[in-house]
């Protein structure tokens, strides 16, 4: 039966002389298991395959054995995150001269997809952290880049992204947090909701209103933890994403120097939208990883579980269901990777493609994980089995980084405003 026993790397590498050992290793390394039609390495360059291999190895050794515990005990795995940063995962698409790895959006998608098989929640946090680091790298001046990026890339410091407020989620441009200019600083007042990492992170990239109503009045300020007037709400209790704390971020007469503003006043919303394009690909990639792991878990379960005198894998309905799951997974993956390439090349269809990829991949992958749970029968509902955690963790991907409804808005707008 498919169990999630944490066998360490040493046990896995033990002498291969005894074939029984190999059988046990196969069971524990299911998420690394291979099915060639699903192999996420297809179509990648040799170098991308190397990146993917490191990410898969890291996920299998450093994340997968702990993902259940991190979820149950709500542990923010600082040590593991820093180990990931040492390999270059802290600023994957940040420029090398400020400590990043300088890779492409496609490389990034491949990496997050692989890491996600080890723990979706932790990988999703890494992707949010990456987005913040990228924002400062791309829109900040040299002083800001040199001040913040190296520490973020090494994860010496952690970052959070603050856009959503209690009163503005999908309608992000209506945000109310104000930043009043006063000499050489801004005074911030307002609150942000659902902030990933909030309270435990060091650097907050905050979208706030410096001008009048609407998108054009929004600017981006970097607020550091410890600034007087910066406080946090209670830690939210969530269905999933439990390895990252989520809190409200409260700003009460919080004083932030003008030198912490990225770009000019009024450019904040633009930055947010650009950041979200990449963020959407990253979140979709995390969903891909969870779906990949779930399909393999389901497949392995079908090969082992017997009812009515034979293994479930002989049941045509389940065979067809598995085939559908695999097909939707590969379709999702192709769309996400194409969106990543389009974004990298600044193609005119990049924004729509990122929205389509986020919409399609997060919806389909949730269904895949959910069906994988169903295939496990009663066992799928037990926390001893990883598949339920994948389901719980990726459910929120259909909601954040722009709800899938907003994705439809973006796509339909692009279709209907074409002349």
């Amino acid at each position: 039966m498919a169990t999630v026993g944490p066998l360490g790397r040493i046990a896995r590498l033990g002498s291969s002389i005894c074939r029984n050992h190999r059988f046990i290793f196969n069971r524990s390394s299911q998420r690394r298991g291979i099915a060639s039609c699903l192999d996420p390495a297809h179509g990648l360059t040799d170098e991308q395959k190397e990146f993917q291999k490191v990410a898969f190895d890291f996920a299998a050794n450093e994340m997968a054995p702990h993902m259940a515990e991190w979820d149950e005990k709500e542990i923010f795995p600082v040590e593991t995150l820093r180990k990931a940063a040492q390999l270059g995962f802290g600023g994957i698409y940040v420029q090398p001269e400020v400590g990043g790895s300088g890779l492409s959006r496609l490389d990034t998608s491949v990496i997050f997809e692989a890491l996600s098989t080890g723990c979706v929640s932790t990988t999703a946090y890494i992707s949010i952290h990456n987005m913040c680091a990228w924002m400062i790298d791309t829109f900040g001046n040299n002083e800001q880049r040199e001040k913040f990026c190296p520490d973020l890339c090494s994860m010496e410091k952690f970052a959070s992204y603050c856009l959503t407020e209690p009163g503005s989620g999908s309608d992000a441009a209506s945000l109310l947090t104000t930043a009043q200019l006063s000499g050489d600083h801004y005074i911030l007042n307002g609150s942000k909701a659902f902030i990933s990492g909030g309270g435990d992170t060091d650097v907050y990239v905050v979208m706030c209103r410096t001008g009048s109503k609407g998108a054009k009045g929004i600017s981006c300020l970097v607020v550091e933890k410890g600034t007087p007037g910066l406080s946090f709400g209670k830690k939210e209790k969530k269905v999933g994403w439990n390895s990252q704390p989520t809190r409200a971020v409260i700003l009460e007469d919080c004083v932030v120097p003008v030198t912490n503003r990225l770009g000019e006043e009024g450019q904040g919303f633009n930055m947010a939208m650009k950041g979200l394009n990449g963020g959407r690909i990253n979140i979709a990639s995390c969903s891909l990883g969870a779906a990949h792991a779930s399909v393999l878990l389901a497949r392995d379960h079908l090969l082992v579980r017997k009812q009515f005198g034979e293994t479930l894998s002989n049941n045509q309905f389940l065979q067809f269901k598995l085939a559908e799951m695999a097909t939707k997974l590969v379709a999702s993956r192709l769309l996400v990777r194409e969106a990543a390439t389009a974004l990298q090349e600044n193609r005119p269809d990049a924004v729509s493609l990122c929205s389509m990829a986020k919409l399609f991949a997060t919806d389909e992958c949730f269904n895949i994980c959910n069906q994988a749970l169903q295939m496990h029968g009663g066992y799928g509902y037990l926390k001893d089995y990883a598949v339920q955690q994948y389901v719980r963790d990726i459910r929120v991907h259909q909601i954040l980084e722009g709800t899938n409804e907003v994705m439809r808005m973006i796509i339909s707008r692009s279709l209907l405003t074409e002349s």
Partner: protein
Amino acid sequence: MSGRVLVGVKRVIDYAVKIRVKPDNSSVVTDGVKHSMNPFCEIAVEEAVKMKEKKFIKEVVVVSCGPQQAQETIRTALAMGADRGIHVDVTGKDYDNLGPLQVSKIMAALAKKEEAQLVILGKQAIDDDCNQTGQMTAALLDWPQGTFASEVTLEGDKMKVVREIDGGLETIKINTPAVITADLRLNTPRYATLPNIMKAKKKKIDKVKPADLGVDITSRLEVLRVDEPPHREAGVKLETVADLVDKLKEAGTI
């Protein structure tokens, strides 16, 4: 002393893959199957890179014998910190028949050509479990060998090697140049970092043929048949010790 270490790496079927025997029982299925570096070879590369970082040696040269795909394995070693690679091109039937004797002849020839101070290999490959290449290489070179090494220390022009043996641990001191084979607990291989993977692209991989090294790779062995291990029979659950004794008597074991 050239300060050069030669590390042999083998491309094998990934340890997580379920092995299937070909229908004609000639060998196992390798087409389309995921391959990676032999885990013990990873440990060997890690040890060599650590020695370089501690400045005991100057250059790590990685060798792999096989078809074009062997270069992937060399690239992985380069991404871990090796300096350059040598791909010994062996393809087709020659590759199918390539065994420890042939590889050790190649390694011995390269060790002489590269004036290596040390040859580090994994103790065995997880596909054939031969555990012969290191020993044969040492014999061909007439060099001392420290096999099943779980700890290696350079002391001047000698090496102290702690070996894992059936009875426990054995410590030996051998002269260099020598051959070491890496056992499981020698070290924990590092992950390649993203920057190192990119740097590895620029490192050199030379391609040579066994004939260029004066090595004859004809095999003296012929594989007759490959079979799957027998399927595990279902066990029987017994209620009492008396039942157990009866069953054992029935089976003729007591």
